[in-house]
């Protein structure tokens, strides 16, 4: 396993991005878990948590951008572009699957019941319908997951992959 010094500037930046993404996810999950069971999904409390998480992610991204600019990122060459393209492809696929799942959940009375589960889905059997806030959380989770997958794929390809 390579140490921090052995990693290239670009790999360090990707690793830092990944750490930020995981930190934001951890913050969000921690806050969500801290909610009372009777907190309504559409409540202002939950909206406030999502708002704070988004602001935190934006501040983190700005700090990261400043740090990367100060360190001076080396120009990308053809291997960097190829690795980025592969990582984007994998991330796109995961985003596609995630969005399809969210759509299936949103319309679970039709798609999930008939095609995914071959009968009444667990959600519809429970009489659970997704509200706007749940849809928002699911979409945010999908976006974040695909971003994490992109970073992990890039790190893997830089370290061990054949491109």
């Amino acid at each position: 396993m390579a140490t921090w010094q052995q990693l290239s500037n670009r790999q360090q930046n990707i690793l830092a991005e990944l750490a930020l993404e995981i930190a934001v996810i951890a913050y969000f999950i921690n806050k969500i878990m801290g909610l009372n069971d009777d907190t309504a999904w559409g409540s202002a409390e939950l909206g406030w948590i999502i708002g704070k998480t988004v602001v935190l992610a934006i501040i983190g991204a700005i700090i990261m951008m400043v740090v990367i600019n100060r360190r001076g990122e080396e120009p990308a060459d053809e291997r960097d572009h190829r690795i980025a393209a592969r990582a984007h492809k994998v991330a796109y696929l995961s985003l596609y699957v995630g969005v399809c799942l969210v759509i299936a959940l949103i319309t679970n009375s039709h798609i999930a019941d008939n095609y995914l589960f071959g009968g009444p889905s667990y959600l519809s059997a429970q009489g659970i319908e997704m509200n706007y806030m749940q849809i928002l959380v699911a979409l945010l989770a999908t976006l974040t997951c695909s971003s994490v997958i992109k970073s992990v794929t890039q790190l893997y390809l830089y370290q061990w992959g054949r491109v």
Partner: protein
Amino acid sequence: MAEITNNIRRLRFNNNEMTQAELAKAAGVTRQTISALEANRYSPSLELAFKIARVFNVSIMDVFSYE
């Protein structure tokens, strides 16, 4: 399965023990790309293959082979 192999490490050694960083600078890529090439973890574009051959002043077939 056939793959592209190369003699870059040997050519560097024969060229006054040129470092990976020096070759990278001459070919216009990062040192990590040269390292990946030597480890056969990266197949270069035709353009990069020609650039590397030009740095060593040899033909492309003397640097890369497909076997």
